[in-house]
């Protein structure tokens, strides 16, 4: 039904929607071989280049930031003394200029280098905020930079800043900001980082919120069945549409969302709220059981949530007739309660 409405809205509406989408941030670019879903990837401190305690704490915190904010089945990162991957605190990098440098060899291992505090660059000496009790202006937040590098580990690349409308949409900027500029100490993946991780790894579960950096159409269906005692069971199913451009997200079930139920009297054009369906399982199914006393048409509605990148959808109509065995006469579903 939503599609019909959209078609009737005409080209002006379509143009308006296109314009709105063009001004929004795009999912952070990514490339290369991915890790296995939820793969546990551990790292050790590189022998001879072990970070000082304050840097280790910042790196471990960044790993936790990645784990907690990924909202996708991206790699789980943690420190382990015998890990294949390593992180070094060293000025010995393949470039003269980067303050962090990551080599990813998914799904096997990675290496990461962070330059040491005080390392001389052309413009001056590198300062990490965590090296100070009172971080000075112009310092780099080591936790944020390490999270940026972990973003590379998870296969994220740098976005084109022209594609980013809000700085905090991503931690993968080419030029991270220093204290006290906005975003200098961002400790979670931005929504467009999450979007790409969901595209590449799929969301953590069917209950995981879909990043608002995405704009996915949904498909809501409704069916009915009879239960014992004259009750009717309405079952809805919510999923991302089959034809979305992101193959990993196509047909993905969506659980724990709000599904509103409406009904109208037979022949009436006015829909009335009839409560909500309850999330049944991780397969995107929702249900409501009730005992009807009269005949109604039913439909379920998923409204586009403000905190998710999902478009709303409305199911087709299901008719439940309360009669003594005569045909409903409606082309959908017929129910008899005698």
């Amino acid at each position: 039904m939503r599609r019909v409405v959209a078609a009737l809205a005409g080209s002006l509406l379509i143009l308006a929607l296109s314009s709105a989408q063009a001004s929004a941030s795009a999912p952070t670019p990514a490339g290369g071989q991915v890790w296995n879903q939820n793969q546990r990837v551990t790292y050790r401190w590189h022998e001879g280049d072990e970070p000082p305690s304050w840097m280790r704490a910042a790196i471990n915190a960044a790993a936790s930031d990645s784990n907690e904010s990924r909202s996708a089945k991206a790699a789980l990162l943690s420190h382990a003394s015998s890990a294949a991957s390593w992180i070094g605190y060293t000025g010995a990098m393949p470039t003269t200029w980067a303050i962090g440098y990551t080599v990813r060899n998914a799904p096997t291992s990675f290496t990461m280098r962070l330059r040491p505090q005080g390392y001389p660059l052309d413009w001056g000496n590198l300062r990490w905020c965590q090296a100070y009790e009172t971080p000075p202006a112009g310092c780099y937040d080591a936790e944020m930079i390490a999270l940026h590098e972990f973003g590379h580990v998870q296969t994220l690349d740098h976005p084109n800043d022209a594609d980013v409308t809000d700085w905090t949409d991503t931690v993968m900027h080419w030029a991270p900001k220093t204290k006290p500029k906005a975003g200098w100490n961002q400790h979670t993946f931005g929504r467009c980082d999450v979007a790409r991780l969901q595209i590449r790894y799929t969301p953590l579960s069917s209950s995981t919120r879909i990043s608002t950096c995405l704009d996915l159409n949904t498909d809501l269906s409704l069916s009915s069945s009879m239960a014992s005692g004259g009750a009717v069971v309405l079952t809805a199913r919510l999923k991302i549409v089959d034809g979305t451009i992101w193959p990993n997200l196509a047909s993905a079930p969506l659980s724990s969302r709000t599904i509103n139920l409406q009904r109208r009297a037979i022949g009436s054009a006015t829909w009335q709220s009839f409560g909500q369906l309850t999330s049944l399982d991780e397969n995107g199914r929702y249900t409501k059981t009730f005992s009807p006393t009269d005949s109604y048409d039913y439909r379920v509605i998923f409204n586009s949530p403000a905190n998710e990148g999902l478009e709303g959808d409305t199911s087709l109509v299901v008719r439940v007739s309360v009669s003594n065995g005569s045909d409903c006469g409606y082309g959908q579903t017929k129910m008899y309660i005698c």
Partner: protein
Amino acid sequence: MLRARWRTSIRPPLIPPVVVMGTAVLLNLAAAQLAIAAPLLAAPAAPDCSTAGAAARAMARDSGSSPAITQRLDAAGTYTGLSVTIASRQEALNLPAESFVGQPAGDALIYTTSVSGNSEVHLVDLTLGCDALIARPSGTARSAILSPDGAAVYVHSVTYPDRADAGVARYALDGGAVDQELPPVPGDVRFGVTFGTQLGWSSDNATLSVQSCGIGSCRTRLLELATATVTTFDADGQGPIVGVTAHHLVTFAACDGLPCPVLSTDRQSGISSRISDEAWSAAVVGSEVRLSTAAGTVEVLQ
């Protein structure tokens, strides 16, 4: 892409090549001379490599020796400098935080030091173990590279104490002129402040590459020695330099890690093309680029 001719003679050389870490006899004989070129670093006695042509001789020799370089940190984890261990020397060179150690060219190793704006450029012969002060640039020396014939050293510096880019100067090792070969890199908001500058030679040794990188991306100036023509390549998206052939500038895309795309830019037209979407390593060998990719090693003729 921008082409220009730019070269200016600054002044006579500050110093001739001077033995810094020679034998005890030589140190005694040269004591007066050393007063104006006093080394910043104490060092043990070693053979003399300050004589004319020493750099060229070291470059022509390749014993396979390479220095072991380790960083030094204080207890709080602050970088304090480099220790350079050379097999032919009894003691390691302990360089200050503001220092640079180049890649060996044959047996010739260049390093720079700078303390409070007093900069030195040194030549080490990895076989003989000797160490000679070969230039004292003004400002803060950031890096240096020997000319392919070993007759000069090119030094990139920043001003002291402001650390503004000071361009690249050529110091003749025979006591000849000092020439400013490249002006300071101009300001450009696309790149921001310069984090690092890298000097290198084209595979045919005819062109000096000077790559200046902001935190996100880079620009490269190519100086053709024969004509003193400087060509600037500053299109968006340029990353670490891989190398330069007679006709192409090869760089990674603007990645701070690997794998990373590799770009090849025609030096005449300035047109770039992506020759690999995802490389783990890349090197210019002659007129070819050797790429290591998921598919294996690929050679691309330039």
